[in-house]
């Protein structure tokens, strides 16, 4: 029983980590592409 409980917990933790990573990846992709679009149109000029 105890093993099963531990297994469930581990799975939950893994699922949580996966969710967080995925969400972070989405955010990074969003902001990165947004930044590139801004620079492309000259709205934002990166410092040299």
């Amino acid at each position, binding site marked *: 029983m105890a093993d099963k409980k531990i297994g469930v917990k581990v799975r939950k933790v893994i699922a949580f980590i996966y969710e967080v990573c995925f969400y972070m990846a989405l*955010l990074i*992709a969003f902001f990165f592409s947004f930044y590139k679009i801004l620079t*492309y149109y000259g709205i934002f000029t990166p410092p*040299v």
Partner: protein
Amino acid sequence: MILKKKFFTKFLPIFLSLLLALVNPLAVPLIYAQEIADVGVGETASADPSASPTPPPTETTETTAVDGSSSAGGVTGGNSEDVSSQSPSVTPEITPSPTVDTINSGGSSPEVTPSVSPSPLPTVDNAGDPVENLSLGTTEPAEGEAQPTIIPGTGDSAIDTGNADSLATIDTQVNDNQAVIPGQMSSSTDPCVPPVGETECPNGVTIENNNFSDVADIASSSALSGGNSITGSGGDAALTTGETVAGANVNNQVNTNLVAFEEPAGIGNSAEAATIEDLGIGSSNPESNEPGPVVVDNQNQGFLVNNLVVVSDSGQNQASENFGITTVATGDALAYANLVNFLNTNLVGSNFGIYLINLMDNFEGDINLDQIWQAIAKQAEKEGMKIVGDKNGFFLVTNDNQAEIKNNVNVLANTGVNQANANGGQTLVNTGDAIALANVLNFANLNLVGTNFFFPIVNIMGSFKGNLLLPRPEKFLPAETLVGTGNTQFFTEQGSAPVFENNNSAGVKSNVNTAATSGDNQANNSGGSAGITTGDAVSRTNINSLVNYQVLNSNWFFLTVNVFGDWLGKILGWTAPDSEEEVNNPSGGSFDFKLSQPKPTGGSLEEINPEIGVEATGETGSTPSPANDGQGAMVLNDNQAEIESRINVSANTGSNQANDNQQDTEIKTGKAKALANLFDFINANFWGSNWFFGLINILGGWQGNMVFTYPDVTTSLVGSSQRVQVGDSAQYTVYYQNKGLDEAQNVTLEVDLPEGLHYSGDNSGLPLTVNGQIYRWILGSLAPGKEGSFVVTVGFDNDLSPTEPISFWSRLFAVHAAEIAEEFRVVLAASIDTSDQESNTSNNQSFAITDVYKLASETNQTTVEDNHHQIVEEGGIDHRQPILELSVWNNINTFIYPGDTIRFEIIVKNISDVPSYDTVVTHALYNSVPEDFGIGEFYLGTVNPGERVVLRFGMYLMNNGILKPSHYRTVSQAFGYARDDSEVLSERVLTYFEIRLKELIPVFRVEAKEKEEDSGEVLGNFYCGIEEDLLPYLLVFLLSSLGLIEKSRRALAVKKKIRNKTK
């Protein structure tokens, strides 16, 4: 459906963002990138594989008596008496042989220049007037001021003495005879082989030396800063003494006879060789071509007495009956004595070198003993001896020696024997380190024929940062190993076996005492606490005696390292060329490096260590000698020697007293190190041998490695171009270098060409041998650090077939065009080799990889060419020229802002009736100055008659400040080649635009993607710019937005659910 949704919302954005992140750093910062649309046959468009980068009877009788005395003293403190240095000096003008080079380093670099003896000077007839009182003395005045005071009273008292240095030197050279025989010599192929060179004397030569000498040396050196006293002081008492260094170097060369062979002017031509008549000495049978006899007869009798006293003392201070705090602190004391005696030394075609290096203070840099050894070996090549004449040569050396040496050496270093008794306050006695060293070398009745002997002595008494380079052990391996020959071969060459007969009688008495003391301290009846801390005390005696020794064609390497100080380093190359051993016993240890042939006949090598009071007595011995028919070589040695050495070496930091003090009492003593090295070579007879005896004494600190030197040859092969078309040729640069520390001999360099490639030439100027597809250049010898390079031109055959196809990934990142029918890779290998062993063999090979391509059009071209030949000129060359027409357009009306992209369209048209080969379009950007901002090249390949090629691309002006607001123009031009290889070019076409304002950075970006109607296909593309297209980012942006929205929506839904549930 769900999967699709997941794919679009989750995986795709991640994948795209990761891909972009990967592509960015891989992008090559080229100015241009291109994508070409082709019109016509469907050819062209490939990146330009731009080529980047780029003797008569002589008799000498000498009778000499010499008394040498030397005294030096440096005193501070005590009674402030400067112990005198008396020394009128008489230096005899005699070329030293054997050489004893003494180098004392005091802060500056000791220059170790390889000087080799003997030097072949004309015979010196000294006919000896007795020389007396030969002495050399050096005194270095002491620094500081002595204040030997007794101060009764109430105030504080202090004595602070400076440092004291003293050095005594005696160099004695008596009865030094040299004879140079005109002869013809040739060296052995291997310089490491005993220098049994070759001599062919046109006429007989007789050399006779009769020497008698009686030499007595007295050398005393003392450096004193101690012997101070403070008693009855009413306040505190502080007594501090400076460092003391006392040394003595005594070199005696008595009764030295040297016979060297001088190479005549016209070697190989006996007519030009010096004859006896030329030298004005006798004559034998000049009409005969057979060499006459060479007779060397040495009669030596010598007496040598040495008395050396070296005292270095910073102790023996007294600070007693003082009222306040009492301290006694003594400086370090160093005392050393180097005594080298040569008595009755007979050298025939031999080289003998002794190097004595004293590193006193701080020395940084390498000490290269290997270089000196090499100099000796090379000298041997020049002056070595090998008797030629087959059965008619007669060579006789007779040495009759009587030697008597008495050595009395006393070395004392003291920082202790201090007294601090009956003081009222705290009492502290702190003594410095004491180091005492004695090196005594006795060479008595040393007879060398065709032998190299090297004896370096390195005394590290200060701080040494650097490597010690030594000859590698292989040089001293048995001759059989090196050249596949040995004694037998040597004997055979003479036609008849030489006679090597030795009658020796020796009496050797050695009495060596070393003592190191840091104890025997007293701290009794203290009113407070009492403590005694003593430093380490180490003493060692090394005695090596070679008595009545016959060595015939034997090599020996022997090195003693005494580690009495701190050695931070490794031993490299001893056990193997690439070996690296840690020093396991860094301090207080002593170890020997030995490499020898089977023990030579007669005599004995005694290493008695560290016993004190050694007595060794040799007996008469002789080598078995084959029956002499009077036609070979004969060496007869008759030696008698009596040697007596008494050596006392003492280092003391202890024997301090601090009794009856009323408060706390403490005694701390420094380290005490005493070392004595005694080497006796008595009645030693050598024939055709290489001997290395070394002695390293580490008494101070050494940071560096002991390196047995090896060469390390390396090569690298670099192609001038990455891609080559079949039928073309390419240049490859071959670099080579000796990265090792020793000379590499018989170096060869090989380049291995694959099938289908052929050698077209090189610019090395080196001899070349060819074996199939292997090309070998002979470099000869490469000195350490020497490097070089040459260029080899290699042709690629038209029928070159693939051996290694290009990988998928290589294709992905390379530029390709559809017209390339076949592309593959060839590998050229270069390797370097030497006959010597190397410390690193992993860097002896190098490879150059070249991509080779075949154009599909080649086949077509051939057809076209064939047609032309048929139509235009039968069997001749077609001289018709293609005509290229160029038109260029850009999309700028008047001006543009930095950060914008200019679109260009270039149309190239071949309006002739012959094709233009290897057509290239260049596109350059200029402003008002002549320099361009970069030229882009577009390789179009063959443009056939009537064919039109359209290039469309964008030029992105980045805002990095390089492109200033100004008027700009672009200049475009097309180049091509006619069938007869003459170059054709189009008109230059200019376009103009203006850049206004905005501080943006120009970096070109290419975005041509157009494909004209019926213009064929897009032939390839690549991105090299820093900037990318917008589209992928837009996609990522959209998808990630969707993903985020979906994610938020779900989260909200979950929240709602929970809320509902709770409700």
